[in-house]
């Protein structure tokens, strides 16, 4: 099997490129990233609350999970966020919402009882870890991705006898160094390509991600297109 691996080939790394639409988003003035994420999470919780009230009108109890809301009410996630029902019964519910791109940020609401005035969600956390691993990101994530466009210098030549594409997920520290504990191959057609991709990652130099001018840790997915030599 792999005992016959050969090492006379070339491989190249393709860094994700921004589309013209992304570039336009990059130039827009914006509030601090943290505040914008909190606004999105509050919006997600507000939508969840509306669904909970509609659910109670029909079932006489609040839904205990977003799965139930999806079944009964066609509820679906707000792009780029994850909302959960923390607790629910006949007379009250509480919930939380999280950002997929900035998992250190979250908002919570409740317990909210029947007839109670809508209370503002409480939001906490730090925007100190950026996760850009969604293959179909939300518009906000596209903007974050664009402002943190991967600046990578990788070797143009590396030995490989196989050709193909590898998706590799990894964490960069706030100095731009990849952390090999946590490297994950998520797509590959050949274990030899997976090996070459990790080998290439170990030889690349990256720039760290930045949020509001601060260098932060980040988790990314990068495609490595590996072309075998002749």
């Amino acid at each position: 099997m792999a005992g016959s691996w050969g090492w006379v080939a070339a491989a190249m790394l393709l860094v994700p490129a921004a589309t013209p639409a992304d570039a336009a988003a990059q130039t827009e003035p914006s509030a601090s990233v943290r505040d914008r994420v909190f606004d999105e999470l509050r919006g997600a919780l507000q939508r969840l609350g509306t669904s909970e009230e509609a659910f109670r009108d029909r079932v006489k109890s609040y839904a205990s999970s977003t799965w139930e809301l999806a079944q009964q009410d066609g509820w679906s996630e707000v792009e780029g966020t994850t909302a959960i029902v923390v607790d629910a019964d006949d007379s009250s519910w509480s919930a939380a919402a999280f950002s997929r791109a900035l998992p250190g940020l979250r908002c919570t609401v409740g317990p909210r009882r029947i007839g109670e005035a809508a209370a503002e969600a409480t939001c906490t956390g730090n925007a100190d870890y950026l996760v850009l691993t969604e293959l179909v990101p939300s518009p906000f994530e596209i903007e974050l991705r664009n402002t943190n466009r991967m600046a990578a210098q990788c070797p143009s030549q590396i030995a490989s006898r196989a050709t193909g594409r590898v998706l590799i997920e990894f964490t960069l520290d706030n100095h731009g160094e990849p952390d090999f504990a946590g490297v994950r191959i998520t797509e590959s057609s050949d274990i030899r390509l997976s090996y070459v991709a990790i080998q290439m990652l170990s030889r690349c130099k990256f720039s760290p991600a930045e949020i509001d001018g601060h260098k932060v840790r980040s988790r990314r997915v990068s495609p490595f297109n590996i072309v075998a030599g002749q």
Partner: protein
Amino acid sequence: MVLVALMACPEAAPGQVRQPGTWTHADSASIATFQEQLQIALQNLKNAQQSYRRAHHTYAPSVEYFTDPPTGHPVYILEATASGWSAVVFHERVPGIRCYIHEGDAPSPSGRVEPGKERGCYGSAVALLPLKADSLLSPANEMVVAQPPQQRDCHEAENRVRDGRLSRTDLFQRHPGFEGKARLRFVVGTDGEIEPGNFTVLETSNSLAALDAMVLVVNCGYEPGIMNGHVVRVLVQQQVNFAY
């Protein structure tokens, strides 16, 4: 010498294995089993939080912050400071039930939680969802593996890594006396081959050790896991210790 240790294989758990493509309301015995699984997930989360706090002097605000995030059940950290944290974990097959944990000065996630109690479960199961068609055998679900994947003879592969015939990292030629380790997670398919698009380095002393460990496990090869007389895909964690 290269030592290879097969670590975590799917844990056995009681409970019914339902046919994919169907779902019914969960019975109380199954719910108890699912809650036990969630309690195990919370214990794993607690261990991860303790390690994180030792390293960073605060608790992690999300499982994404862990190098080796807990797998299997969706876990959400609701609060995390230097002095406390709380979380809930859900069962992906049983919407409606969840287990909670809170430590230090973090408040309990639910008002119905008994005062002074660190953890517990609440809610009611509204459905039992089917296993996904491509479900892996792992601690994440309740299936029992009769026979986990068996590693074939690694002696030849070890020799080839050691003398540089298999590995191109030259780790041992450049660093005589090197000691290190790498812990990997991967899927052994029904053909006994490691699936190329499902491979994680959980822990490693350096990038070269991870590469050599990868070469080694691929070349050792596996006999596939078997359940109920059928070969099955199995999630495997394996640690490779290097000492030359």
